[in-house]
Each structure stands twice: as structure tokens, then as C-alpha cells.
């Protein structure tokens, strides 16, 4: 509860974030998901 209250009081007036990376070209369509090379 205490934490929540702290969060409440710290609510920012503006939130805005933009991150960037070099697009490494791993984009796919929604017909498959491949995150990483998987090894069991």
C-alpha cells in the first residue's frame, strides 16, 4: 500500500519515451514468432 501511495504522489505530469536501436532485420509477419535460436 505504501508503495502504491508513493507511486501516486510521484505521478509525472508528462510521460514520453523514445528508444532506438539499429533495426537488425528480424521482422516477420504475424504467422510465426521466432525469438531466438532455441536450444533445448
Amino acid at each position: 500500500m505504501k508503495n502504491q501511495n508513493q507511486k501516486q504522489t510521484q505521478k509525472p505530469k508528462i510521460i514520453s519515451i523514445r528508444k532506438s536501436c539499429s533495426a537488425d532485420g528480424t521482422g516477420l509477419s504475424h504467422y510465426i514468432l521466432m525469438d531466438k535460436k532455441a536450444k533445448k
Partner: protein
Amino acid sequence: MFSTFDIKHPDYVALIEPDNAFWALVEKNSAINDKFVNAYKNKAEKFSDEMQKLRFGLALNAVYINPTSRCNLNCVYCYIPQEMRKHGDDMSRDALFEALEKLSGYFKQVMPENRLPQIIFHGAEPLLVKEVIFPAIEKFQDRFRFGVQTNGVLLDDEAIEFLTVNGVGIGLSLDAPIKQIADKTRKTWGGDSVFENTIKTIHKLKGYDGYNVITTVTKENMHCLCDMIDFFHELEIPAVMLNMVRCTLPGAREVKPDDYEVAQHFIKALDRTHELYKKTGRKIVVANFANILVSIMAPMARRLMCDISPCGGGRVFFALAPDGGMFPCSEFIGLPDFKGGNLFRDDINTVLQSESFKKVTDRKIEDIKPCDKCAIRHFCGAPCPAEAYEMNGGMNKIGAFCEFYEEQVRYAFRLIADNIVEDYLWSEWDKDTVTLFEASALNRL
């Protein structure tokens, strides 16, 4: 310069610069100040350059190979025409080897050395020709990352062993946690259920981190998406996709859910993932939604390319039919007008520049009404061109789920406002990113 977008949050409203996808959530009784505007202006060109690169400057990095156009199932919404799935042809082993050699040579020219291009064995049902694809995976595994998308019927112990030992990505399809509902959309040609079989396979794959499940969302299963999440979480599936059915072919349109209604079910399912995470400490990521969050916070870090225009079809990947026919995306494989050439006969770059491919790669959201005026146009992308063309009568038409995408973006912004975004994303999602802009840092100045 900024458009206002109501995110249906009690405290915040979004301001968005649609062209470069910059945004700010502003408390309802506050306003942005000059310091903020100037900081933004300093970075605006960089943001625009990024979007330009993402939309027009990426190189090919993946190919969906259909090693057969036959399928052992007859799902009601399948985007591969029935005739093709019933009587279609297979790729021979030699032809597949030849295709992979040619693709490998091409990728060497366009991709950085430290990156492997991806090959996905895809629909119809690739495991009908295991004897063709498994040797290819063995032979070419140093040159590509491989994945298989399958209905799972033929995924026996031997196949699981082969695929997991070789680190091949495995995608399975399951539409509901209950047989009666799952069977409404996915069944054999004779109408038999494959539900039990799929569940058995999912159990066998437990612990393998290279697999995931796709649920295709229709009017038949939208009511049980929350149960689906419970079920997936219980089975410890790390990532799933809840994909809206693409309404390219008439069969799919028959099970199209209502746009707004499906958004509410989808959002409840996302809420459920959060409850489960808080309760158990274990996440279940809905990857297609996570991709929207990423596209908002770090546009270049997105992984799925349906929700940006032009979409990834025909430029970031293409689909290969068993006879070597090249299509911008699997979604177009039943539409002969979109065949851009043949891998065995034509130069790949020439096909990428063909009229058929250009119809898709030139489809810009700025040319689509009402998307050209929409604040969230780069978090939606107006998918899907195949759907727009077949269902709504042209490339420059919207797709089937405008309202759904709007609600999805609103929800994503609400999570950002409530500072709980990380709970919906895979860990280390931003490991390779740098922060270009952060309002909280400005306040500290």
C-alpha cells in the same frame, strides 16, 4: 503539430506526432511547455529518419517457404484456398536445396555477416514433407535460422527430437482450451477433431523455449480468450499470439468477430496475463500485443511487421510456393495476381521490384482514408493489404479491424500511463536499445 488522442485514461491524454511516431502522455490539467517542445524539436529529424528507414529502408531478412501446398486439415478460415490444400503440389528435396543455395547467396549480399537470415517452413502443412525439409535443415543450419509453423498432427516424438535438438523454432496452432470450441475452426477434411492430439504435443514441448502457440481469433472463440490465457499459462508456454483472423478469403469472413466486441475480449485477456503474472511471478507474453508496445516505445525494435505501413510483405520477407512462385507474403499465396516471379528462374531483386510486389510495398498509410488523418497510423499500419484488396475492394482501403487496432493502442498507452508496461513484455526487450528521449530526464535538468 501534435494530434490529441483520447486513451480513455482518467488522468492522461496522448499527444502524438503521427508522421514520426513521437508521443507524450500529458496529465489532463497540465500542458507541454517550451522546454519540452524544444527538446522534441531537437530530436524530430532523427525520429523521422528512423521511420523512413523502418518503412522504406530495410533489407530482406526472411523467407516463408511452403514446401507443400497440401494440408491434412481443413480449417474454416485458412487463407490457402481449399483446392490448393487438397490437390496441391510438393517441393522436391533437390528443388528445396537449390532454393536454399540461391537464397543463401542472396542473403550474403544484403545482410550483415553476424546475422543469420530466417527460413520458416510454413503453410499449408510443412510436416507432410518432413523427408524433404529435415535434410535441408541439417545441411543448411549454419546458414539460416529455421522455424516450422505446424498444425502439430504429424509432430511425433521423432520429429520433436529432431527439431528441438537442432534448435528449430516451432509454432503450433490451437484456437481454444476446450475441444468443442477448438473444433469449430480447426478440423480434418472428414470433420474430425485434432484437439487432443495438439494438447498432447504441447505437453511434450514443455520446457523447450523455442516454441510458441498461435490462436487465431474468430467469433467462435473470442469469448474464451481469458480461459485460453489461463490454459497457456498453466502449460508454461512462454509466448503466444492472439491473431485476429485475416478476412482475405470468404471462408474467413464467415467467422469474423465484431470489431469492437473482439477488442473488449482481447483486452480482458491481456488483463488476465497481468493478473497471472502478479499472482505467480511468471509471465505469459502475448507477442502480437507486446509488439505494439515496442512499436510505441522503440519503433525500430519491433519484431512483427504487419502493423506498420508498408507492411513487411515483399520487402522484409516473401513467401515461396512449392513450384518456386514468389509472393509478397503467405497471405497472398492464393491470389495469382500477386505472383512476382519464380525463384528458380528469376533474379530476386527483380522480383522484389516487380509490379506485383510493388502493389504491396508501395501501400502507404498516407494514401489510405481515413488512416491518412489518424493519430496512431504508425502503431497500426492498416493491416492487411491482402484483406483490404479482397474484402474492401482495393489496396488503398482499410483492413477489417480498424476499431480493434485503435482500442489496442489505447490500452497500450494506458499501461504506459500506469507504469506497468514491463509486465507485458519479454524480459530484456530493450537490451539493444538506447534512449533517445525521456520526459523525466528533462524534468531533472
